[in-house]
């Protein structure tokens, strides 16, 4: 096999744009830091107590706490009430310590920490600022905030990485800047970036892997492939939700690798080993301790519903609505349990969902992006019926395009992909549960992933441009993962009769590729840059509006 000339990576943006991107990223970091220090109540992110406890365990030399043994200590966030307290209220709290009451159970007794089911990379990194703060001060206020800084810095770096990915793909900086910054203006993302959780750090690692995958597909430089594998293994060592992404990206790397046969096998082995190193280590550790490579804390009771399919589930429940609303704005968790005066209210989760004008703006922005991406996809899908394969294929992708050359072999493949995508959309639109006035819009946006991804798969298989194939590999992986998450949510519903796992944050590993695909479509269709500018401005306003009108009053209620 010979190595053909590859697509060139677009030249780096000018110094002016790089400075703007860094400044914007700095502002977004400052915002997340401010929220981490002064706004987000301790414990008010999903399972923040467990994440924080994991960080503390590592900082105190426990490599690594074991599921089933690790606990969340009593009074994690605030100082325990002094034994000789001055105020009557504090006396009451001490009295509660002696007699087991509901509040004592919540505040006093150690709880099992099921968060240690996550691999440890994020926690090991967050333990560094935490350990430093512990040596500098005994004040827990600072220690908590020190651990929170990792997420805040990750969000700023994420903006830079996304901007770099978009400009590498040839998206003009004018469009790339607001698109990259948009992730920093989603309330849920800002909220998560202000706390101790592995989601934003994972988002950053997956964005780095995505950038190097894009660069590799365009320029075929092996260092990019290895860097992609490196970031993938770190992502896999951060959260298991990245494992399907590792499988997908690794498959793309091998499918696209243009090397002579011997070198192909050599690098395929090297890349696979590197990309799967940390997940394999974690799986081996799980096997050693639990006999199950993917040991997690899950409900194990008998199913409450029998013969209840995923389709029944999607028809009957507002899964799509929850997914969209929670992706945009789901704020809060159990911060109210960390205020001594509110301890009696500590039952379950208290959160607020943002469904205001800002959410509607974001939804309409997604509709516009979906329409643009669909137009771009249909145009290039139609081209694939006549795009000639490379004369001398040098990769599995090239061979696939060569074997299924335009004509009676390629046409049925493309028609089946197109028909499946369109049928999925039509079936979904007619049958999936529609919640509220905006239900049809939410369903339109989410279901449009099916035709874009499946028509796009035809582009990924046959197109002659690396950046386009990259964009549609990403879409196809996004669709596969979306179906997997829907299936998992259905499984949880069958077991406990509750909608669980309906969280946009589970999709963060796939968002960088999705955003890159959207940016590419905007660029290639020459959509005026002012549209992306208004999108960025609207999202930035919407986030501030949501915080001032809803989130801060909610936190005030939580914290007193």
């Amino acid at each position, binding site marked *: 096999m010979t190595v053909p000339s590859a697509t060139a990576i677009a030249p780096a*943006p*000018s110094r*002016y*744009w790089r400075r*703007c991107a860094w*400044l*914007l990223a700095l*502002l*977004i970091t*400052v*915002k997340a830091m*401010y929220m981490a220090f*002064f*706004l987000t109540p301790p414990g008010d992110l999903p399972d923040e107590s467990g994440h924080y406890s994991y960080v503390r365990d590592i900082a105190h030399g426990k490599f690594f706490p074991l599921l089933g043994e690790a606990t969340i200590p009593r009074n994690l966030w605030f100082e325990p009430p002094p034994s000789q307290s001055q105020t009557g*209220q504090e006396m009451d709290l001490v009295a509660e310590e002696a007699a087991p009451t509901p509040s004592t159970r919540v505040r006093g007794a150690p709880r099992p920490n099921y968060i240690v089911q996550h691999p440890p990379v994020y926690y090991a990194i967050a333990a560094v600022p935490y350990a430093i703060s512990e040596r500098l001060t005994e004040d827990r206020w600072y220690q908590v905030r020190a651990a929170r800084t990792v997420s805040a810095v990750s969000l700023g770096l994420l903006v830079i990485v996304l901007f770099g990915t978009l400009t590498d793909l040839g998206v003009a*900086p*004018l469009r790339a*800047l*607001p698109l990259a*910054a948009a992730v920093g*203006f989603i309330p849920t993302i800002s909220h998560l970036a202000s706390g101790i959780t592995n989601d934003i750090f994972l988002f950053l690692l997956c964005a780095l892997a995505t950038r190097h995958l894009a660069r590799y597909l365009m320029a075929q430089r092996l260092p990019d492939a290895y860097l992609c594998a490196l970031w993938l293994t770190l992502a896999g060592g951060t959260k298991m939700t990245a494992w399907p992404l590792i499988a997908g990206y690794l498959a793309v790397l091998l499918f696209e690798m243009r090397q002579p046969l011997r070198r192909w096998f050599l690098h395929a082995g090297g890349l696979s080993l590197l990309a799967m190193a940390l997940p394999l280590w974690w799986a081996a550790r799980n096997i050693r301790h639990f006999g199950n490579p993917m040991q997690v804390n899950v409900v194990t009771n008998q199913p409450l519903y029998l013969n209840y399919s995923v389709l029944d589930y999607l028809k009957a429940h507002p899964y799509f609505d929850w997914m969209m609303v929670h992706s945009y704005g789901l704020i809060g968790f159990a911060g109210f349990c960390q205020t001594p*005066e*509110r301890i009696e209210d500590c039952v379950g989760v208290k959160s607020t969902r943002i469904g205001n004008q800002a959410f509607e703006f974001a939804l309409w922005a997604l509709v516009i992006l979906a329409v643009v991406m669909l137009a771009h996809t249909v145009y290039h899908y139609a081209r694939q019926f006549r795009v000639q394969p490379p004369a001398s294929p040098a990769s599995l992708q090239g061979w696939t395009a060569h074997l299924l050359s335009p004509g009676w072999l390629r046409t049925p493949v493309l028609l089946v992909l197109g028909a499946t995508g369109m049928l999925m959309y039509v079936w979904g639109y007619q049958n999936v549960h529609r919640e509220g006035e905006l239900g049809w819009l939410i369903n339109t946006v989410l279901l449009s992933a099916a035709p874009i991804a499946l028509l796009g798969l035809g582009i990924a298989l046959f197109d002659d441009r690396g950046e386009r194939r990259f964009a549609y590999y990403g879409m196809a992986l996004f669709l596969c993962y979306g179906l997997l998450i829907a299936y998992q949510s259905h499984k949880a519903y069958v077991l406990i009769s509750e909608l669980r796992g309906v969280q946009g944050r589970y999709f963060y590993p796939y968002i960088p590729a999705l955003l890159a695909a959207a940016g590419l479509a905007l660029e290639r269709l020459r959509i005026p*840059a*002012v549209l992306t*500018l208004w999108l*960025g*401005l609207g999202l*930035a*306003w919407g*986030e*501030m*509006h949501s*915080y*001032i*009108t809803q989130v*801060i*009053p909610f*936190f*005030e*209620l939580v914290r*007193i």
Partner: protein
Amino acid sequence: MKHRHPLIIQWLAVAGLFFFILFVLYHEQIVRYQYKPTHVAPANWIDRQLTGEIVAGFVLEQPLALTHTDLPPRERRHVFCIGLLMSNYLNRRNHGEFTVALSAGGRAQVKALRARDVRDNALQMVCFDEFRLIDVLGQDARLTLMGLDGRPGRSVTGWLSPQPGLPSAIRGGEPAGAALVFDTFVRANSAPFQHNAYALMIIASLVLSLMAVASRAGPRAAR
């Protein structure tokens, strides 16, 4: 040659403009953080009718029957406030003054308000510094709305509607058939939350300005 300011000056100037606009839009909302409702459920605004213009000689009494609050004990020691639903007749220019008095436990406090400050169909907040929520809770309390020097055609009005568990208002010595529309609040220290809101507003102004200025100057700067 046309003079151009350095980009950083443009950025900060536009950020200042954005901040001014956001401040005008959200300041009132932020100030209201200090008012915490005593009940989760707000007053009923359905089937409402006007109290009539609060002109000179107008008197309306509303017995309060606050027997329960959703606030935790510590917050019941904050200053008691009411939010009266009022109307200024579609933003008409009104004149004169009226008073809102609260009496409970043998004490009373009168607050004078200007008709021109009343906004249309919005809660007019009145705080009684001499009363804490616990002074009113479970007490035989009473609100009195009295016109001082308002003239017909140039005065504001309150609203009446059936309120579950609340006795009818008494207007001019006669039962009005419905209760005054109002919500009860305490005034808490919300300064940290207000500071947070202003801080976010400053950051948002800088972000908005940066994107706007960069996008406008970008193509020129890139050349």
